[in-house]
Protein backbone atom coordinates (compact mmCIF):
# COMPACT_ATOMS: atom_id res chain seq x y z
CA UNK A 1 0.00 0.00 0.00
CA UNK A 2 1.51 3.25 -1.16
CA UNK A 3 1.56 5.93 1.49
CA UNK A 4 2.55 9.54 0.93
CA UNK A 5 4.20 11.03 3.99
CA UNK A 6 5.36 14.18 2.21
CA UNK A 7 2.15 15.78 1.07
CA UNK A 8 2.58 19.43 0.16
CA UNK A 9 6.35 19.11 0.54
CA UNK A 10 8.90 19.34 -2.26
CA UNK A 11 11.82 17.09 -1.38
CA UNK A 12 15.36 17.35 -2.73
CA UNK A 13 18.26 14.97 -2.48
CA UNK A 14 21.77 16.18 -3.29
CA UNK A 15 24.80 14.15 -4.24
CA UNK A 16 28.35 15.41 -4.18
CA UNK A 17 31.70 14.82 -2.58
CA UNK A 18 32.97 16.15 0.72
CA UNK A 19 34.37 19.65 0.19
CA UNK A 20 32.37 20.49 -2.94
CA UNK A 21 29.78 22.58 -1.16
CA UNK A 22 26.82 20.21 -1.11
CA UNK A 23 25.85 21.30 2.39
CA UNK A 24 26.28 24.98 1.57
CA UNK A 25 24.29 24.99 -1.67
CA UNK A 26 21.57 22.92 -0.02
CA UNK A 27 21.31 25.45 2.80
CA UNK A 28 21.50 28.36 0.36
CA UNK A 29 18.55 27.05 -1.65
CA UNK A 30 16.71 26.35 1.61
CA UNK A 31 17.28 29.89 2.81
CA UNK A 32 16.06 31.28 -0.52
CA UNK A 33 12.86 29.25 -0.10
CA UNK A 34 12.57 30.55 3.46
CA UNK A 35 12.95 34.11 2.20
CA UNK A 36 9.98 33.47 -0.10
CA UNK A 37 7.82 32.53 2.89
CA UNK A 38 8.25 28.77 3.02
CA UNK A 39 9.01 26.36 5.82
CA UNK A 40 12.18 24.37 5.27
CA UNK A 41 14.40 21.60 6.51
CA UNK A 42 17.95 21.54 5.11
CA UNK A 43 20.19 18.85 6.54
CA UNK A 44 23.15 16.78 5.48
CA UNK A 45 23.73 13.08 5.92
CA UNK A 46 26.69 13.32 8.24
CA UNK A 47 29.45 10.79 8.30
CA UNK A 48 33.13 11.10 8.99
CA UNK A 49 34.09 14.37 7.34
CA UNK A 50 36.37 13.21 4.55
CA UNK A 51 37.21 15.39 1.59
CA UNK A 52 36.29 13.61 -1.62
CA UNK A 53 33.99 10.97 -0.12
CA UNK A 54 30.45 10.78 -1.52
CA UNK A 55 28.06 12.85 0.61
CA UNK A 56 24.33 13.48 0.48
CA UNK A 57 22.15 16.28 1.72
CA UNK A 58 18.40 16.71 1.91
CA UNK A 59 16.01 19.62 1.58
CA UNK A 60 12.30 19.91 2.27
CA UNK A 61 10.28 22.94 1.21
CA UNK A 62 6.65 23.44 2.17
CA UNK A 63 4.03 26.13 2.62
CA UNK A 64 3.06 24.54 5.95
CA UNK A 65 5.21 23.58 8.95
CA UNK A 66 7.13 20.36 8.32
CA UNK A 67 6.65 17.60 10.88
CA UNK A 68 8.50 14.65 9.38
CA UNK A 69 12.07 14.11 10.62
CA UNK A 70 13.69 11.43 8.51
CA UNK A 71 15.83 11.16 5.43
CA UNK A 72 14.27 11.73 2.02
CA UNK A 73 13.56 8.40 0.32
CA UNK A 74 11.43 9.50 -2.63
CA UNK A 75 12.71 12.90 -3.75
CA UNK A 76 10.96 15.15 -6.21
CA UNK A 77 14.32 16.53 -7.29
CA UNK A 78 17.78 14.98 -7.31
CA UNK A 79 20.79 17.24 -7.83
CA UNK A 80 24.21 15.75 -8.50
CA UNK A 81 27.00 18.29 -8.51
CA UNK A 82 29.89 15.94 -9.24
CA UNK A 83 30.06 14.33 -12.70
CA UNK A 84 32.39 11.56 -11.50
CA UNK A 85 29.78 10.35 -9.02
CA UNK A 86 27.58 9.11 -11.86
CA UNK A 87 29.87 6.09 -12.08
CA UNK A 88 29.46 5.40 -8.33
CA UNK A 89 25.86 6.20 -7.38
CA UNK A 90 22.58 5.89 -9.22
CA UNK A 91 21.05 9.33 -8.85
CA UNK A 92 17.62 8.10 -9.96
CA UNK A 93 17.26 5.75 -6.99
CA UNK A 94 13.95 6.51 -5.30
CA UNK A 95 13.35 9.52 -7.57
CA UNK A 96 9.64 9.96 -8.24
CA UNK A 97 8.68 8.95 -11.81
CA UNK A 98 7.56 12.53 -12.48
CA UNK A 99 10.61 13.93 -10.70
CA UNK A 100 13.47 16.10 -11.90
CA UNK A 101 17.06 14.95 -12.25
CA UNK A 102 19.66 17.74 -12.37
CA UNK A 103 23.23 16.90 -13.23
CA UNK A 104 26.52 18.67 -13.65
CA UNK A 105 27.67 17.00 -16.84
CA UNK A 106 28.76 17.83 -20.37
CA UNK A 107 26.37 15.15 -21.65
CA UNK A 108 22.99 15.82 -23.20
CA UNK A 109 19.79 14.93 -21.28
CA UNK A 110 19.08 12.09 -23.71
CA UNK A 111 22.40 10.40 -22.97
CA UNK A 112 21.61 10.59 -19.26
CA UNK A 113 18.14 9.15 -19.78
CA UNK A 114 19.66 6.26 -21.73
CA UNK A 115 22.35 5.66 -19.11
CA UNK A 116 19.95 5.45 -16.16
CA UNK A 117 16.80 4.31 -17.97
CA UNK A 118 14.91 7.29 -16.53
CA UNK A 119 11.86 7.84 -18.71
CA UNK A 120 9.63 10.21 -16.75
CA UNK A 121 9.86 13.73 -15.45
CA UNK A 122 12.65 16.02 -16.53
CA UNK A 123 16.37 15.60 -17.00
CA UNK A 124 18.36 18.81 -16.69
CA UNK A 125 22.01 18.96 -17.62
CA UNK A 126 24.45 21.79 -17.20
CA UNK A 127 28.20 21.86 -17.70
CA UNK A 128 28.75 23.53 -14.35
CA UNK A 129 32.38 22.43 -14.15
CA UNK A 130 33.26 24.38 -17.30
CA UNK A 131 31.20 27.38 -16.19
CA UNK A 132 32.92 27.42 -12.80
CA UNK A 133 36.39 27.18 -14.30
CA UNK A 134 35.70 29.88 -16.90
CA UNK A 135 33.95 32.30 -14.55
CA UNK A 136 35.70 31.70 -11.22
CA UNK A 137 38.85 29.94 -12.31
CA UNK A 138 38.20 27.30 -9.67
CA UNK A 139 36.07 24.18 -9.38
CA UNK A 140 33.21 25.78 -7.44
CA UNK A 141 30.47 24.11 -9.43
CA UNK A 142 27.89 23.73 -6.69
CA UNK A 143 26.23 27.11 -7.30
CA UNK A 144 25.88 26.78 -11.10
CA UNK A 145 24.46 23.26 -10.67
CA UNK A 146 22.02 24.56 -8.09
CA UNK A 147 21.08 27.37 -10.49
CA UNK A 148 20.06 24.80 -13.12
CA UNK A 149 17.89 23.05 -10.53
CA UNK A 150 16.26 26.33 -9.55
CA UNK A 151 15.46 27.42 -13.08
CA UNK A 152 14.17 23.98 -14.14
CA UNK A 153 11.90 23.51 -11.12
CA UNK A 154 10.87 27.12 -10.48
CA UNK A 155 10.78 26.24 -6.78
CA UNK A 156 12.10 29.72 -5.99
CA UNK A 157 13.07 32.62 -8.20
CA UNK A 158 16.67 32.80 -9.41
CA UNK A 159 16.81 36.38 -8.10
CA UNK A 160 16.09 35.23 -4.53
CA UNK A 161 18.89 32.69 -4.77
CA UNK A 162 21.29 35.33 -6.05
CA UNK A 163 20.30 37.58 -3.16
CA UNK A 164 21.08 34.81 -0.65
CA UNK A 165 24.41 34.11 -2.34
CA UNK A 166 25.37 37.80 -2.25
CA UNK A 167 24.43 37.96 1.44
CA UNK A 168 26.55 34.96 2.27
CA UNK A 169 29.50 35.96 0.03
CA UNK A 170 29.73 39.72 -0.15
CA UNK A 171 32.23 41.23 -2.61
CA UNK A 172 34.03 39.53 -5.45
CA UNK A 173 33.21 35.91 -4.60
CA UNK A 174 29.52 36.70 -4.53
CA UNK A 175 29.69 38.64 -7.79
CA UNK A 176 31.48 35.77 -9.56
CA UNK A 177 28.97 33.26 -8.23
CA UNK A 178 26.19 35.49 -9.51
CA UNK A 179 27.73 35.45 -12.99
CA UNK A 180 28.12 31.67 -12.84
CA UNK A 181 24.52 31.25 -11.70
CA UNK A 182 23.19 33.45 -14.50
CA UNK A 183 25.23 31.59 -17.08
CA UNK A 184 24.04 28.21 -15.78
CA UNK A 185 20.43 29.33 -16.07
CA UNK A 186 21.08 30.25 -19.71
CA UNK A 187 22.97 27.10 -20.60
CA UNK A 188 20.97 24.42 -18.76
CA UNK A 189 19.41 21.88 -21.11
CA UNK A 190 16.10 20.28 -20.31
CA UNK A 191 15.09 17.10 -22.03
Amino acid at each position, binding site marked *: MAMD*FARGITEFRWHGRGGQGVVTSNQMLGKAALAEGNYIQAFPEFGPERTGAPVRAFLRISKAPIQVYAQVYHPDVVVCIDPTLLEVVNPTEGLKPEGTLVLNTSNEPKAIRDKFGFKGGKVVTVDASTIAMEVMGRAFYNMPTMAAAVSATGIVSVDTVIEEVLNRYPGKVGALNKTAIERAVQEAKIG
Partner: protein
Amino acid sequence: MSVSKDKIKIEGLTGDAAIAHALRQADLDVLSAYPITPQTIIVEDYQKFAADGEVNAAVIPVESEHSAMSACVGASAVGARVATASASAGLALMWEILYCAASMRMPIVFTVANRALSAPINIHNDHSDGMGMRDSGFIQLYCQSSQEAYDTTLMAFKLAEHHDVLLPVMVGIDGFIVSHNVERVEMLPDDAAKKFVGVRTPVQPLDPKNPITMGPLALTDYYFEFKEQQDRAMQQVIKVYKEVEAEFEKLTGRKYGIFETYKTNDADIIFLAMSSMGGTAKVVADVLREKGEKVGVIRLKMFRPFPTKELAKAIGNAKAVAVFEKAMSFGAATNPLALEVKTALYGTKSRPIIANFVVGLGGRDVPPMTFVEGFEKTKEYLKKGEAPLYETLGVRK
Protein backbone atom coordinates in the same frame (compact mmCIF):
# COMPACT_ATOMS: atom_id res chain seq x y z
CA MET B 1 1.68 41.55 25.69
CA SER B 2 2.42 39.98 22.34
CA VAL B 3 5.23 41.17 20.14
CA SER B 4 4.20 42.77 16.86
CA LYS B 5 4.98 40.76 13.75
CA ASP B 6 7.33 43.28 12.20
CA LYS B 7 9.65 42.96 15.18
CA ILE B 8 9.94 39.18 14.87
CA LYS B 9 13.09 38.11 13.07
CA ILE B 10 12.72 35.03 10.86
CA GLU B 11 15.92 33.15 10.11
CA GLY B 12 17.03 29.79 8.81
CA LEU B 13 18.81 28.29 11.80
CA THR B 14 20.03 24.87 12.85
CA GLY B 15 18.83 23.65 16.23
CA ASP B 16 22.26 24.41 17.67
CA ALA B 17 22.31 27.94 16.22
CA ALA B 18 18.78 28.57 17.50
CA ILE B 19 19.86 27.58 21.02
CA ALA B 20 22.94 29.82 20.77
CA HIS B 21 20.66 32.77 19.98
CA ALA B 22 18.43 31.96 22.94
CA LEU B 23 21.50 31.86 25.20
CA ARG B 24 22.63 35.20 23.74
CA GLN B 25 19.27 36.77 24.51
CA ALA B 26 19.03 35.22 27.99
CA ASP B 27 21.80 37.54 29.13
CA LEU B 28 24.02 34.92 30.79
CA ASP B 29 26.66 35.78 33.32
CA VAL B 30 28.72 32.65 32.73
CA LEU B 31 28.95 29.99 30.07
CA SER B 32 31.42 27.19 30.65
CA ALA B 33 31.72 24.31 28.23
CA TYR B 34 33.93 21.81 26.49
CA PRO B 35 33.31 21.06 22.80
CA ILE B 36 31.70 17.82 21.64
CA THR B 37 29.80 16.91 18.47
CA PRO B 38 26.92 17.51 17.74
CA GLN B 39 26.59 20.24 20.35
CA THR B 40 29.71 22.20 19.31
CA ILE B 41 27.94 24.84 17.22
CA ILE B 42 26.05 26.07 20.30
CA VAL B 43 29.23 27.04 22.08
CA GLU B 44 31.08 28.13 18.91
CA ASP B 45 28.27 30.52 18.01
CA TYR B 46 28.03 31.76 21.58
CA GLN B 47 31.77 32.43 21.66
CA LYS B 48 31.41 34.44 18.45
CA PHE B 49 28.77 36.55 20.16
CA ALA B 50 31.14 37.00 23.10
CA ALA B 51 34.09 37.89 20.85
CA ASP B 52 31.93 40.42 18.98
CA GLY B 53 30.86 42.02 22.25
CA GLU B 54 27.21 41.06 21.78
CA VAL B 55 27.07 39.41 25.20
CA ASN B 56 28.61 40.26 28.54
CA ALA B 57 29.04 36.74 29.86
CA ALA B 58 32.31 35.31 31.06
CA VAL B 59 33.01 32.36 28.77
CA ILE B 60 35.10 29.80 30.61
CA PRO B 61 36.74 27.23 28.34
CA VAL B 62 37.74 24.29 30.50
CA GLU B 63 39.75 21.09 30.11
CA SER B 64 36.85 18.65 30.47
CA GLU B 65 33.12 18.40 30.88
CA HIS B 66 33.57 17.48 34.53
CA SER B 67 35.19 20.88 34.96
CA ALA B 68 32.58 22.59 32.78
CA MET B 69 29.74 21.49 35.03
CA SER B 70 31.86 22.22 38.13
CA ALA B 71 32.49 25.78 36.92
CA CYS B 72 28.75 26.13 36.29
CA VAL B 73 27.95 25.00 39.83
CA GLY B 74 30.46 27.47 41.28
CA ALA B 75 29.16 30.37 39.22
CA SER B 76 25.54 29.50 39.90
CA ALA B 77 26.31 29.39 43.63
CA VAL B 78 27.28 33.06 43.66
CA GLY B 79 24.00 33.89 41.99
CA ALA B 80 25.01 34.04 38.33
CA ARG B 81 22.83 33.00 35.41
CA VAL B 82 24.67 30.03 33.96
CA ALA B 83 24.49 27.70 30.98
CA THR B 84 26.50 24.92 29.42
CA ALA B 85 26.12 22.41 26.60
CA SER B 86 27.26 18.87 25.95
CA ALA B 87 26.34 15.44 24.60
CA SER B 88 27.17 11.75 24.80
CA ALA B 89 30.58 10.99 26.32
CA GLY B 90 30.94 14.60 27.46
CA LEU B 91 27.69 14.39 29.35
CA ALA B 92 28.80 11.09 30.84
CA LEU B 93 31.98 12.72 32.11
CA MET B 94 29.83 15.30 33.93
CA TRP B 95 28.03 12.55 35.76
CA GLU B 96 29.27 13.20 39.29
CA ILE B 97 28.65 16.94 39.06
CA LEU B 98 25.17 16.58 37.53
CA TYR B 99 24.02 15.18 40.86
CA CYS B 100 25.79 18.00 42.72
CA ALA B 101 24.14 20.65 40.53
CA ALA B 102 20.68 19.26 41.21
CA SER B 103 21.18 18.50 44.88
CA MET B 104 22.73 21.92 45.55
CA ARG B 105 19.70 23.41 43.76
CA MET B 106 21.68 25.26 41.07
CA PRO B 107 19.36 26.55 38.30
CA ILE B 108 21.78 25.79 35.46
CA VAL B 109 20.45 25.47 31.90
CA PHE B 110 22.11 22.55 30.18
CA THR B 111 21.49 22.28 26.43
CA VAL B 112 22.18 18.85 24.98
CA ALA B 113 22.30 17.62 21.40
CA ASN B 114 21.37 14.07 22.31
CA ARG B 115 23.86 11.52 21.01
CA ALA B 116 24.67 7.83 21.42
CA LEU B 117 27.20 6.58 23.96
CA SER B 118 30.33 4.60 23.10
CA ALA B 119 31.35 1.89 22.26
CA PRO B 120 31.64 1.72 19.34
CA ILE B 121 32.17 5.45 18.89
CA ASN B 122 29.12 6.95 17.23
CA ILE B 123 28.45 10.66 16.76
CA HIS B 124 24.78 10.29 15.88
CA ASN B 125 21.51 10.65 17.71
CA ASP B 126 19.81 8.54 20.26
CA HIS B 127 18.67 9.21 23.82
CA SER B 128 21.20 7.10 25.73
CA ASP B 129 22.89 10.19 27.18
CA GLY B 130 19.66 11.81 28.35
CA MET B 131 18.24 8.59 29.76
CA GLY B 132 21.52 7.91 31.53
CA MET B 133 21.13 11.14 33.52
CA ARG B 134 17.44 10.74 34.17
CA ASP B 135 17.82 10.11 37.91
CA SER B 136 20.32 12.93 38.47
CA GLY B 137 17.67 15.44 39.55
CA PHE B 138 17.70 17.54 36.37
CA ILE B 139 14.43 18.60 34.79
CA GLN B 140 14.41 17.20 31.25
CA LEU B 141 12.69 18.83 28.26
CA TYR B 142 13.00 17.20 24.83
CA CYS B 143 12.29 19.35 21.74
CA GLN B 144 11.03 18.45 18.28
CA SER B 145 12.31 21.36 16.20
CA SER B 146 14.79 24.24 16.03
CA GLN B 147 11.96 26.64 16.89
CA GLU B 148 11.06 24.64 19.95
CA ALA B 149 14.74 24.47 20.95
CA TYR B 150 14.95 28.27 20.86
CA ASP B 151 11.67 28.72 22.73
CA THR B 152 12.42 26.08 25.34
CA THR B 153 15.90 27.40 26.08
CA LEU B 154 14.43 30.80 26.89
CA MET B 155 11.71 29.26 29.06
CA ALA B 156 14.21 26.97 30.81
CA PHE B 157 15.83 29.87 32.68
CA LYS B 158 12.54 31.06 34.10
CA LEU B 159 11.64 27.52 35.11
CA ALA B 160 15.02 26.70 36.66
CA GLU B 161 15.36 29.98 38.54
CA HIS B 162 11.79 30.04 39.89
CA HIS B 163 11.98 29.99 43.68
CA ASP B 164 9.54 27.08 43.93
CA VAL B 165 11.86 25.05 41.69
CA LEU B 166 15.58 25.96 41.82
CA LEU B 167 16.67 22.95 39.82
CA PRO B 168 18.87 22.56 36.75
CA VAL B 169 17.15 21.99 33.39
CA MET B 170 18.32 19.88 30.48
CA VAL B 171 17.01 21.05 27.10
CA GLY B 172 17.47 18.26 24.57
CA ILE B 173 17.44 18.25 20.78
CA ASP B 174 18.14 15.29 18.54
CA GLY B 175 21.78 15.35 17.46
CA PHE B 176 22.19 16.13 13.75
CA ILE B 177 18.49 15.46 13.03
CA VAL B 178 17.69 18.83 14.62
CA SER B 179 21.07 20.17 15.79
CA HIS B 180 22.33 20.41 12.18
CA ASN B 181 18.99 20.92 10.43
CA VAL B 182 18.31 24.42 9.08
CA GLU B 183 14.71 25.28 9.80
CA ARG B 184 12.54 28.37 9.89
CA VAL B 185 12.94 29.99 13.31
CA GLU B 186 11.08 33.04 14.59
CA MET B 187 13.13 35.01 17.08
CA LEU B 188 11.90 37.58 19.54
CA PRO B 189 13.53 40.99 19.54
CA ASP B 190 16.42 41.01 22.03
CA ASP B 191 14.71 43.35 24.48
CA ALA B 192 11.49 41.31 24.55
CA ALA B 193 13.39 38.06 25.12
CA LYS B 194 15.51 39.65 27.82
CA LYS B 195 12.45 41.05 29.52
CA PHE B 196 10.69 37.70 29.38
CA VAL B 197 13.61 35.84 30.95
CA GLY B 198 14.12 38.57 33.53
CA VAL B 199 16.95 38.78 36.05
CA ARG B 200 17.83 35.92 38.38
CA THR B 201 17.17 36.60 42.04
CA PRO B 202 19.31 34.16 43.99
CA VAL B 203 17.85 32.95 47.27
CA GLN B 204 20.99 32.19 49.16
CA PRO B 205 24.10 33.16 47.17
CA LEU B 206 27.69 32.63 48.19
CA ASP B 207 28.86 35.98 49.47
CA PRO B 208 32.16 36.75 51.23
CA LYS B 209 30.37 39.29 53.44
CA ASN B 210 27.88 36.71 54.64
CA PRO B 211 29.79 33.46 54.41
CA ILE B 212 27.85 30.21 54.22
CA THR B 213 28.80 26.66 53.28
CA MET B 214 27.10 24.90 50.41
CA GLY B 215 26.90 21.19 49.71
CA PRO B 216 28.64 20.30 52.95
CA LEU B 217 28.91 16.92 54.56
CA ALA B 218 25.57 15.49 55.66
CA LEU B 219 25.66 11.95 56.89
CA THR B 220 22.96 9.89 58.53
CA ASP B 221 21.76 13.01 60.29
CA TYR B 222 20.63 15.27 57.41
CA TYR B 223 21.41 13.79 53.97
CA PHE B 224 17.93 12.30 53.66
CA GLU B 225 16.31 15.68 54.38
CA PHE B 226 18.22 17.22 51.46
CA LYS B 227 16.79 14.53 49.18
CA GLU B 228 13.31 15.04 50.62
CA GLN B 229 13.48 18.74 49.74
CA GLN B 230 14.85 18.02 46.29
CA ASP B 231 11.92 15.71 45.63
CA ARG B 232 9.49 18.34 46.85
CA ALA B 233 10.99 20.87 44.42
CA MET B 234 10.50 18.41 41.55
CA GLN B 235 6.83 18.15 42.47
CA GLN B 236 6.45 21.89 41.76
CA VAL B 237 7.89 21.77 38.27
CA ILE B 238 4.79 20.99 36.22
CA LYS B 239 2.81 23.80 37.81
CA VAL B 240 5.61 26.33 37.28
CA TYR B 241 6.29 25.13 33.73
CA LYS B 242 2.65 25.76 32.85
CA GLU B 243 2.85 29.29 34.27
CA VAL B 244 6.07 30.05 32.39
CA GLU B 245 4.66 28.69 29.16
CA ALA B 246 1.42 30.63 29.54
CA GLU B 247 3.48 33.80 29.76
CA PHE B 248 5.55 32.75 26.77
CA GLU B 249 2.42 32.00 24.77
CA LYS B 250 1.10 35.51 25.44
CA LEU B 251 4.32 36.86 24.00
CA THR B 252 4.73 34.59 20.99
CA GLY B 253 1.50 32.67 20.42
CA ARG B 254 3.46 29.41 20.73
CA LYS B 255 3.07 26.66 23.30
CA TYR B 256 3.99 23.01 23.52
CA GLY B 257 2.70 21.69 26.82
CA ILE B 258 4.41 19.12 29.02
CA PHE B 259 3.36 16.85 26.19
CA GLU B 260 1.59 17.46 22.93
CA THR B 261 -1.53 15.46 22.07
CA TYR B 262 -2.49 14.94 18.44
CA LYS B 263 -5.79 13.33 17.44
CA THR B 264 -5.88 11.30 20.65
CA ASN B 265 -9.51 11.92 21.64
CA ASP B 266 -11.05 8.97 19.84
CA ALA B 267 -7.81 7.05 19.21
CA ASP B 268 -7.65 3.28 19.64
CA ILE B 269 -3.88 3.24 19.27
CA ILE B 270 -1.63 6.04 20.47
CA PHE B 271 1.96 6.49 19.31
CA LEU B 272 4.06 7.85 22.15
CA ALA B 273 7.48 9.27 21.33
CA MET B 274 9.82 12.13 22.20
CA SER B 275 11.75 14.76 20.24
CA SER B 276 11.90 14.68 16.43
CA MET B 277 10.23 11.23 16.29
CA GLY B 278 7.10 12.82 17.70
CA GLY B 279 6.86 14.89 14.53
CA THR B 280 7.20 11.90 12.23
CA ALA B 281 4.60 10.02 14.28
CA LYS B 282 2.05 12.79 13.63
CA VAL B 283 2.57 12.54 9.87
CA VAL B 284 2.08 8.77 10.01
CA ALA B 285 -1.07 9.19 12.13
CA ASP B 286 -2.52 11.50 9.46
CA VAL B 287 -1.94 8.93 6.72
CA LEU B 288 -3.29 6.02 8.79
CA ARG B 289 -6.37 8.04 9.71
CA GLU B 290 -7.16 8.44 6.02
CA LYS B 291 -7.19 4.67 5.81
CA GLY B 292 -9.74 4.58 8.62
CA GLU B 293 -7.39 3.70 11.47
CA LYS B 294 -8.02 5.53 14.72
CA VAL B 295 -4.49 6.59 15.55
CA GLY B 296 -3.28 9.47 17.70
CA VAL B 297 0.05 10.72 18.96
CA ILE B 298 1.44 11.92 22.24
CA ARG B 299 4.77 13.69 21.87
CA LEU B 300 6.26 13.81 25.32
CA LYS B 301 8.31 16.93 25.98
CA MET B 302 8.85 16.71 29.73
CA PHE B 303 10.48 13.46 30.77
CA ARG B 304 11.56 14.72 34.21
CA PRO B 305 9.50 15.16 36.19
CA PHE B 306 7.42 12.52 34.45
CA PRO B 307 3.84 13.78 34.06
CA THR B 308 2.31 10.56 35.35
CA LYS B 309 -1.24 11.62 36.11
CA GLU B 310 -1.58 13.98 33.17
CA LEU B 311 -0.37 11.33 30.77
CA ALA B 312 -2.70 8.65 32.13
CA LYS B 313 -5.58 11.07 31.61
CA ALA B 314 -4.53 11.93 28.06
CA ILE B 315 -4.22 8.26 27.12
CA GLY B 316 -7.72 7.80 28.51
CA ASN B 317 -9.57 4.90 26.96
CA ALA B 318 -7.16 4.13 24.14
CA LYS B 319 -6.82 0.37 23.66
CA ALA B 320 -3.07 0.36 23.08
CA VAL B 321 -0.04 2.61 23.37
CA ALA B 322 2.92 2.06 21.06
CA VAL B 323 5.97 3.55 22.72
CA PHE B 324 8.84 4.36 20.34
CA GLU B 325 12.10 5.19 22.06
CA LYS B 326 15.77 5.67 21.30
CA ALA B 327 17.40 4.11 24.34
CA MET B 328 17.87 0.72 25.88
CA SER B 329 18.08 -0.10 29.54
CA PHE B 330 20.04 -3.31 29.32
CA GLY B 331 18.59 -6.02 31.46
CA ALA B 332 15.58 -3.98 32.53
CA ALA B 333 11.99 -5.23 32.29
CA THR B 334 11.55 -2.82 29.41
CA ASN B 335 13.10 0.49 28.38
CA PRO B 336 13.13 3.90 30.08
CA LEU B 337 10.17 5.58 28.39
CA ALA B 338 7.98 2.45 28.35
CA LEU B 339 8.80 1.77 32.00
CA GLU B 340 7.44 5.17 32.97
CA VAL B 341 4.38 4.85 30.74
CA LYS B 342 3.55 1.44 32.16
CA THR B 343 3.88 2.77 35.69
CA ALA B 344 1.62 5.70 34.83
CA LEU B 345 -1.06 3.35 33.52
CA TYR B 346 -0.87 0.56 36.07
CA GLY B 347 -3.40 2.17 38.35
CA THR B 348 -5.89 3.06 35.61
CA LYS B 349 -9.07 1.09 35.00
CA SER B 350 -8.61 0.71 31.25
CA ARG B 351 -4.96 -0.45 31.40
CA PRO B 352 -4.21 -0.40 27.68
CA ILE B 353 -1.79 -2.79 26.03
CA ILE B 354 1.67 -1.29 25.78
CA ALA B 355 4.04 -2.13 22.96
CA ASN B 356 7.61 -0.92 23.24
CA PHE B 357 9.72 -0.41 20.14
CA VAL B 358 13.39 0.50 20.48
CA VAL B 359 14.42 2.30 17.30
CA GLY B 360 17.06 4.63 15.87
CA LEU B 361 20.01 3.72 18.08
CA GLY B 362 23.22 5.38 16.93
CA GLY B 363 21.36 7.59 14.48
CA ARG B 364 19.71 4.79 12.47
CA ASP B 365 17.08 6.65 10.47
CA VAL B 366 13.51 6.26 11.74
CA PRO B 367 11.39 6.76 8.61
CA PRO B 368 7.58 6.88 8.66
CA MET B 369 7.43 3.21 7.60
CA THR B 370 9.01 2.20 10.92
CA PHE B 371 5.97 3.66 12.66
CA VAL B 372 3.69 1.84 10.22
CA GLU B 373 5.50 -1.40 11.07
CA GLY B 374 5.05 -0.71 14.78
CA PHE B 375 1.40 0.10 14.17
CA GLU B 376 0.77 -3.22 12.38
CA LYS B 377 2.47 -5.11 15.20
CA THR B 378 0.46 -3.25 17.83
CA LYS B 379 -2.75 -4.16 16.01
CA GLU B 380 -1.75 -7.82 16.19
CA TYR B 381 -0.97 -7.52 19.89
CA LEU B 382 -4.40 -5.99 20.44
CA LYS B 383 -6.00 -9.02 18.80
CA LYS B 384 -3.91 -11.37 20.90
CA GLY B 385 -4.50 -9.36 24.04
CA GLU B 386 -0.83 -9.12 24.93
CA ALA B 387 2.41 -7.56 23.74
CA PRO B 388 6.05 -8.48 24.31
CA LEU B 389 7.83 -6.38 26.94
CA TYR B 390 9.87 -4.74 24.19
CA GLU B 391 11.38 -5.34 20.78
CA THR B 392 13.74 -3.61 18.38
CA LEU B 393 12.75 -2.30 14.93
CA GLY B 394 14.94 -1.31 12.01
CA VAL B 395 17.94 -3.44 12.94
CA ARG B 396 19.64 -6.46 11.31
CA LYS B 397 18.87 -9.48 13.46
